């Protein structure tokens, strides 16, 4: 189980924040930039399990004995695209049951954000990025009824292969999509981060959740080593001493800083997620602070 009941209940009260509101395909709970002619009511749509029962039109139900959901004119839904990096580098630390495991953590984040999106009646698409492609896709779907399917979808994923984010994002963009909120969950171990950042920005409003485990920021390594990249299989000889380690730490910090600066420049929201933070705290507290949810 990716998320427990309590957390899930708490998550239901949250909504994803999209700063630049996009026109929705159907009526949702969000205010649209379009000013409609009628004041309140716009349309009905069929009830799907998981929809907010408060919005059920009980009068129609009494008359027709079929449940309909009232759509109000000024509210529309949001297309939420959750893009999850499922490359091999996310399979870290190597022990999968480790609480610091990045992919496990990323799945939880995805599940949590997905739950928020579904609970808010947003249209949710989850894309799995592997080897420069979108290897699996969930949705677009709406309503809380999709939540168990989402969980099942996420739990079946295995990290493998390379990321090649730029190609993968391009591939994702090739398919016609509704514009909306793009949330990318990745460790961003990419040679040219600004490329895909620009790509991301051009497409959508984006949130970048940068997932790293603590030992990636301060590796507990020493001696003469041949480092093996578990994702690419490349090796690198390194003789580690105190000086080199401190250099690495500085370099990692500078990397995070540059990513954050770049994101700010591109108008994206960036959140560095280190897996030693409890994930529910991250979802309920840090994301709120970072204006990802409210």
């Amino acid at each position, binding site marked *: 189980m990716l998320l427990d009941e309590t957390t899930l209940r708490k998550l239901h009260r949250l909504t994803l924040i999209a700063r630049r509101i996009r026109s929705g395909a159907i009526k949702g709970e969000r205010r649209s930039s379009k000013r409609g002619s009628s004041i309140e009511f716009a349309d009905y749509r069929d009830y799907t399990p998981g929809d907010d029962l408060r919005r059920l039109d009980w009068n129609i139900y009494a008359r027709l004995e079929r449940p309909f959901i009232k759509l109000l004119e000024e509210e529309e839904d949001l297309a939420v695209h959750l893009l999850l990096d499922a490359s091999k*580098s996310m399979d870290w630390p190597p022990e999968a049951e480790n609480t610091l495991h990045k992919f496990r953590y990323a799945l939880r984040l995805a599940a949590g954000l997905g739950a928020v999106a579904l609970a808010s009646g947003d249209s949710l698409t989850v894309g799995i990025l592997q080897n420069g492609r979108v290897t699996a896709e969930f949705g677009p779907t709406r309503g809380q009824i999709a939540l168990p399917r989402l969980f099942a979808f996420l739990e079946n994923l295995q990290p493998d292969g390379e990321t090649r984010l730029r190609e993968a994002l391009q591939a994702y963009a090739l398919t016609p999509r509704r514009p909306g909120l793009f949330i990318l969950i990745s460790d961003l*171990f990419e040679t040219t981060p600004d490329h895909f950042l620009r790509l991301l920005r051009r497409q959508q409003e984006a949130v970048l959740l940068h997932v790293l485990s603590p030992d990636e920021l301060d590796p507990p390594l020493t001696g003469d080593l041949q480092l093996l990249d*578990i994702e690419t299989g490349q*090796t690198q000889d390194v003789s580690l001493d105190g000086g*080199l380690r401190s250099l*690495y730490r500085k*370099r990692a910090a500078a990397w995070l800083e540059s990513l954050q600066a770049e994101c700010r420049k591109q108008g994206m929201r960036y959140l560095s997620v280190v897996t030693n933070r409890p994930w529910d705290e991250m979802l309920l507290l840090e994301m709120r602070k970072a204006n990802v949810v409210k």
Partner: protein
Amino acid sequence: MQLLVPGGLALLLLAVPILLLYMLKLRRKPAQVSSILLWQQILRDRQANTPWQKLKRNLLLFLQLFILAALTMAFARPAVLTPAVASGAVIVLLDGSASMHATDVAPNRFEAARRAVGTLIENLPDDSRLTLILVRNTPQTLIAAENDKALLRQALASARPTPTSADWQAAFALATAAARNASEPVIVIVSDGGLPTTGLPALPGEVRYVPVGVAQDNLAISALALRGGQLFAEVSNYSSTSHTVLLSISEITAQETALRYARQLEIPPGEQRNITLENIISNGGIYQAQITSPQATTPPDALQLDDTAFAIDRETATRRVLLVSKGNLYLEQLLAALPGIRPFRALSDELPAERFDLYLFDGLYPPQLPPGALLFVNPPPNPLFAPGSPFQPAEMRLREHPLTRYVDWSNVHILQANAATLPNWAETLIEADGRPLVFAGETEGRRIAAVMFDLRQSDLPLQVAYPILFSNLIDYLVPPTAFDASQSLHPGESLTLVPPPGTQQVTVAAPSGKLHTFLSSDASLTFTATEEIGYYAINFLSNESNRVEYFAVNLFDPDESDIRPRSSLQIGQKVIPPAATERTGLRELWPWLVGLALLVLLLEWMVYHRREYSVFRKRY
């Protein structure tokens, strides 16, 4: 510099396995990481200062190679040639005699000699062994065949000069013994050269001479004697120039030091001047003669030990002997003839109240024994020795004893003697038919002797043995003096003390005030701590009295007073010039190299652990 074991350099080949091990060690441990992206970046950053990094990475290798190099060099035993007076089996004869007290070289000759020996020890090659002999009246081996410089230095520091003369013959014998096992011994004599020119045995091996001292000038009081109211003093000039000194003679009493005589003497080189003072009143005083420079501020010469001398006014004590007899011409004549005796005579058994040193009872035994020594001739039956019956001695035998020395008993005939049982405190001196005829001993703090026959019943008074035996007996019963020091002693000379009967403790106070105490149990004591120049006070302490006597120790040694340093030595037929330092020794450097290797090893350990520790600290 040279290598003693050049083959040791072959150990440098060990560098090959070290390098191989290092290369093996550099086969890197594989380690998985999620991405090498950041690693590649920082390694790219490091390209700029690669040479230094490479060096740093290989610092341990370099340190290890350095340690190997240092140890290999140590194995090869590099050595440098050092100037040394001696190497091999070295025997140093360090002169510690009186003349070495001369202050012509600061602080004195002995310290200069000590420095010379110290230099010799420092420059001693590592394969050499050194024996150090301090030459004085009794030469002493301070350390034998040692090459540990710390021990040698310690032994050298313990050497003390004495104001005695040097017994070079004994020292040469010691040196010869020490050189016996060495193949090429080198004997180094560090001295001012006051060696006797004749009578020295030849020395084995090579003999080198390190001269000490520069001054020529010395004046000495070469004699001071007090006899029969006359004081004789002699001042010698051992210099090569004429000198004027002030000779002063003072009398030291318990209360004061009174100047009795002073005179300025001009003494030509190599000559003596003497003075005689008449009419010295004999009152047991101590006379001190001293020479000083006329300009009283400076000492007259470089050696002060012989500038002062002491003489003790010490007449041989006259012993008061009381003869208690009904008339014996032989004994009366004998007592009148023996020197150092003041005879008195008592006619009856009634003894005078006055005290005498010796009571001689002829054919009598007093109802009450007087205090003092007792000599019985032909005693009647008495409680001291059990009475016996008269007998005719047939076979007489002289026991070997100091009291029977020079006594010829072969022609003595005795008509009749009295048998006696020998008391347990007495020793038989002459026996007849197994019975004691003459015996002596000490009991209850007094000495007693007995002659068990009437002189008139024998021909003894006509024999030469008569005065000799009685003189020996009287000297034993009442020793003329506690010790024989009619002349002053030389430093280090021993003195035999015969404490008066009844003495319980003998204390000798040296000039420096040091006290030597002996509990008197034996008849005589030998006092040997006479290494200070000056006068000594001997205190004979008994229940009744406290007798103090004095004796003086003076240098009076022309060999020592003649402090002119000899430029060369003559031993037997050989003339030995001063040693030059052209001879070289080898000083090995390997201990330094091993020390260096250890230091670098420590450094290597620290470098290695600094790396480890920084990781450790970050992780926990």
